């Protein structure tokens, strides 16, 4: 990571709302974060806190008839949210790409794996049919799929979940993007396969200068790969810190809760120490004040009335909690 350079991507006060039958839902509710060239940023939070919607909003992949995104997403000096659809389209897949959570459903069942990689290469890199195919095979090799020449010609149903996710990674990386969103790339896989995929991502990342936004609710994965972590809760950023301080000295009670619920290996296999009590609030009926207060063990009077401001401290940390503000 190089922080002397300007950020590659800056998200400023981004709000994404869905128009649902029950009303307007702010799935992402005013978030800010930066991604610097070459770094791996972890985006963590419980399921439903708005991680995927954040990534989809940046790439403008949400259906405009049901979702609206406001704010700014500055990429290489330009606001992606203001860009013409045509210009945005050319950035997708070539400069910013995405790895999805579900390898089983994210590949087109009636196109060969090779074709699904090659079509990107023909489009963005202007390769001809033959060159694109060769490069697709190379990409499959790069993601360590055995006998890539054969696999390229096969349809996704012939591949295992882990192999499909490798193919998905090959697809996302084939045009050498400078930014990749990896949305829970291992969640749908077996534990052993998970480790392999993370190792692969780590390996691919080290050999390049691309930035990765690693979205996960698995702090073990974060500890392994990310340099900096943004913690989200109910559509907002609640804490940000470099990975080591975050693990050793979390400031937001929600982050503490997440860290306490990391599974540790006991004699009987994996068990959770503690879950954060309570449930994620309904986006239609957000609690007043701090949105975490119904579940917070350290809730104070003010927490139920006023929402805590974001406080920056120690050069590169920030948190939104009255406990931090009081210090």
């Amino acid at each position, binding site marked *: 990571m190089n922080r002397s350079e300007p950020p590659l991507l800056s998200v400023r006060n981004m709000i994404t709302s869905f128009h649902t039958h029950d009303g307007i839902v702010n799935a992402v509710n005013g978030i800010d974060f930066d991604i610097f060239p070459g770094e791996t940023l972890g985006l963590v939070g419980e399921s439903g806190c708005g991680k995927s919607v954040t990534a989809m909003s940046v790439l403008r992949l949400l259906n405009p008839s049901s979702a609206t995104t406001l704010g700014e997403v500055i990429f290489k000096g330009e606001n992606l949210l203001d860009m013409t659809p045509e210009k945005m389209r050319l950035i997708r897949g070539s400069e910013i790409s995405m790895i999805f959570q579900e390898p089983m459903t994210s590949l087109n069942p009636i196109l060969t794996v090779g074709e699904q990689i090659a079509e990107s290469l023909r*489009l963005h890199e202007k390769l001809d049919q033959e060159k694109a195919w060769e490069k697709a095979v190379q990409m499959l090799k790069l993601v360590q799929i055995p006998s890539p020449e054969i696999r390229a010609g096969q349809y996704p149903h012939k591949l295992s979940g882990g192999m499909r996710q490798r193919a998905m990674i090959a697809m996302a990386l084939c045009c050498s993007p400078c930014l990749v969103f990896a949305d829970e790339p291992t969640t749908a896989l077996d534990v052993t396969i998970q480790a392999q995929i993370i190792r692969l991502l780590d390996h691919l990342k080290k050999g390049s200068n691309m930035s990765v936004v690693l979205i996960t609710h698995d702090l073990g994965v974060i500890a392994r790969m990310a340099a900096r972590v943004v913690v989200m809760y109910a559509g907002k950023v609640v804490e940000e810190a470099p990975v080591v301080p975050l693990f050793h000295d979390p400031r937001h009670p929600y982050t503490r809760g997440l860290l306490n619920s990391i599974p540790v290996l006991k004699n009987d296999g994996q068990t959770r120490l503690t879950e954060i009590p309570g449930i994620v609030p309904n986006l239609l009926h957000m609690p007043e004040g701090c949105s975490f207060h119904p579940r917070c063990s350290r809730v104070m009077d003010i927490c139920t009335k006023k929402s805590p401001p974001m406080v920056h401290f120690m050069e590169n940390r920030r948190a939104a909690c009255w406990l931090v503000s009081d210090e």
Partner: protein
Amino acid sequence: MIHFLMKRLLSIIPVLLGISLLLFFMLRMLPGDPAQVLAGQMASPEDVRIIRIQMGLDQPLYIQYGVFLKRLVHLDLGVSARTQNPVIQEIWARLPNTILLALCAITLACLFGIPAGVVAAIRPYSWIDYLVTLASLFGISMPVFWLGLMLMIVFSITLQWLPAGGIGTWKHLVLPSITLASFVVAFIARMTRSCMLEVLSQDYVTTARSKGLKEKVIIVKHALKNALIPIITVVGLQFGLLLGGAVLTETVFAWPGLGRLIVDSILARDYAMIQGSILIFGLLYTLVNLLVDMTYAFVDPRVRYD
């Protein structure tokens, strides 16, 4: 594939046997006496009795069925009581007309129905979607004979562009094809719309978008190709129905096809003719189904017949 084909072709035999059995006994439960119909209202009871014996109608039913089956094995469908021609010859004369009309109608229906459904699905709840929905509603609910007559009045009688009926040139095909296609085009458009909506919400379409592909490529290559799998089933079934369901259209436009032959035969209690033509329908229908199943293998790589 060959093995699969042989198995499927063989399995047609019990299906046809079932049809013939059901048909044979159901026909004979109908009121009305074919010998009487053939002899005419004025015939004496003695004449009717002689005709009945000639036709074998005095035998017990199971013997009649046995005779029918024995002839069937030799591809002999009997002789039409109404025209005294071999049934197979009558059918053979009309079958090409029926197939031609059904092919034209299904082609028209696909040509208009699939694009209409796609366009509606791309912009759901837009004016164009409502237009397609409205047009489909018309197509589905319009009585065939009424549509046929209207087309005839406008294009044959008033404008005199097209012949009002009969068979011969491509011009004779236009109005019956449109009439016959009207329901199917609407049905296919509705089906395409819902299949496309379903496919467009799939994860792999989002993946395709995330790669920056052109919208056209996403719609046609990634979405429509997947949606075609269920659409093919519907088109196949509708084609099968068109082969047999053209009675009204054939009547309005005096089109010499199988549908009218069946109706005429039923009115005349022409057992051999009815049995023959319905068996042929059954055969065509099962063949169309087989064809549909075979097309799956070409469209969907997950389907393999080995």
